[in-house]
């Protein structure tokens, strides 16, 4: 093993950046193709019951049927609604809480035990209360999603604000900007932005998990549709929605990364 690595290392010429990039895309595509191939082979060769693991080749037809019936669009738009509102509510509240506790010792000290009590409670554990308070309604789903998002953004914002270089705050002081408002908008927020955006991006992914969890108990959307399909053993439909979620997440994450890159264009 060691011999081959040693002898092959000098033989490989240093790849040029463009070729290197092409190679990586090629490898990624090859890996994906292999993954689909193995997936297709497992049920076909009888290693897996096709009822339990649908072959990828049956997915497009299932997707098409779901699209035709209008169920796909309805589920996606309902879930996107829960997702967007839950994400927005959770992010805004998390941001406000994180900034307040990051800026004020008083706020941090006063909330520290409350945070310790509430923080470890998983979003799913709130389902009973969500149903009691909101019924089986979109608001309940939004509530569950918002709770998950809140904590991620809260801690990201708190840590990022707390971590702002004191020297930069002194610059604001030296130029006479000493009110909390001036500090926040001139120094703290822009300086904390990289950390806050990391938190928001994590929340962007985490919220999709919450969507499924929140809809499983009957609020219309992707999650509910998946549970219906699985109880009918329509596993190909479950896969359709898994891929739908992956695609939606991939799309949003790509857009987010582009926006993030623009906002943080000042970074080295």
């Amino acid at each position, binding site marked *: 093993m060691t011999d081959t690595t040693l002898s092959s290392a000098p033989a490989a010429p240093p790849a040029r950046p463009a070729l290197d990039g092409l190679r990586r895309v090629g490898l990624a595509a090859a890996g994906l193709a292999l993954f689909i191939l193995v997936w297709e082979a497992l049920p076909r060769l009888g290693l897996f019951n096709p009822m339990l693991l649908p072959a990828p080749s049956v997915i497009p037809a299932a997707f098409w049927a779901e699209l035709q019936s209008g169920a796909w669009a309805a589920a996606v738009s309902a879930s996107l609604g829960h997702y967007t509102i839950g994400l927005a509510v959770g992010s805004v509240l998390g941001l406000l809480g994180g900034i307040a506790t990051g800026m004020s010792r008083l706020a941090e000290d006063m909330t520290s035990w409350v945070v310790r009590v509430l923080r470890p409670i998983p979003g799913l554990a709130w389902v009973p209360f969500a149903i009691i308070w909101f019924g089986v309604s979109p608001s309940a789903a939004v509530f569950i999603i918002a709770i998950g998002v809140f904590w991620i953004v809260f801690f990201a914002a708190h840590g990022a604000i707390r971590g702002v270089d004191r020297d*930069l705050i*002194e610059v604001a002081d*030296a*130029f*006479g*900007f000493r009110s909390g408002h001036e500090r926040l908008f*001139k120094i703290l927020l*822009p*300086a904390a932005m990289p950390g806050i955006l990391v938190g928001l991006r994590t929340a962007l992914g985490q919220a999709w998990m919450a969507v499924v969890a929140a809809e499983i108990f009957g609020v219309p959307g992707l999650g509910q549709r998946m549970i219906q399909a699985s109880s009918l053993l329509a596993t190909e439909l479950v896969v359709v929605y898994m891929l739908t979620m992956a695609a939606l997440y991939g799309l949003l994450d790509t857009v987010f990364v582009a926006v993030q890159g623009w906002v943080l264009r000042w970074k*080295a």
Partner: protein
Amino acid sequence: MGAAMESVIDIEGLSLTFTRDGQRNEVLRGLDLSVPRGAFIAIVGSSGVGKSTLLRVLIGLATASSGTVKITPRPGQRQPLALVFQDSRLLPWRSVVDNVAFGLEGGGLSRAERRAKAREALEIVGLSHLADRWPHQLSGGQRQRVSLARALAVEPEVLLMDEPFSALDAITREGLQDELVRIWQLTGKTVLFVTHDIEEATYLADRVVVLAGSPGRVVADQILDAPRPRRRSQSQEPDLVAGIRQHISGETMVDGTGI
């Protein structure tokens, strides 16, 4: 002559004591200093003698324990003092021109007016061509020029400079020293320049104030009238440099036996 001697900063009996982790640390005791309008004063001393603390008190980043500081700006002066930090402390998320415009915010100027003023200040330090760069794209010397421009942009009466060139390489430092003298002569600002480098102090200033001891106080106050432009090759006042050196070392070696 009368107007020229009018002082812009009057410090009387300034003392400052920090308490950190229960430890009292007296940094300055009974410091008197009067800064005439338009002067270039260098404050020299070894590290920890309270030079930077003095500037921090003047700009309001530290509070004196006792004593008075009187600042007499010209009428209509919005911000009489501006500080240039040792490390440039540019805000990395702002372009060069917006960094320079920083201190002008909240003064009733529009964004375009602030940028126009910032560009004028960049012109003075010779960096107009870098206005749209990000700070991380600049060299150390350029960053310090931008920092100087940021202070100049608010049109202060006094420039407070806290070892502004100490982190730069020798060639860049000498270039910036000459630049500073030129800007001082051009703008007629008062400069209070803190440094631990005696050569730098005597090359730049027309008055050198030596701080020494612990707590720090003024142990020497010398007028330098060497004509400008000064030569760097050999110090024009070797006796003076030697004298200042003696003041500083005398205080640090044999504690408390200054003048």
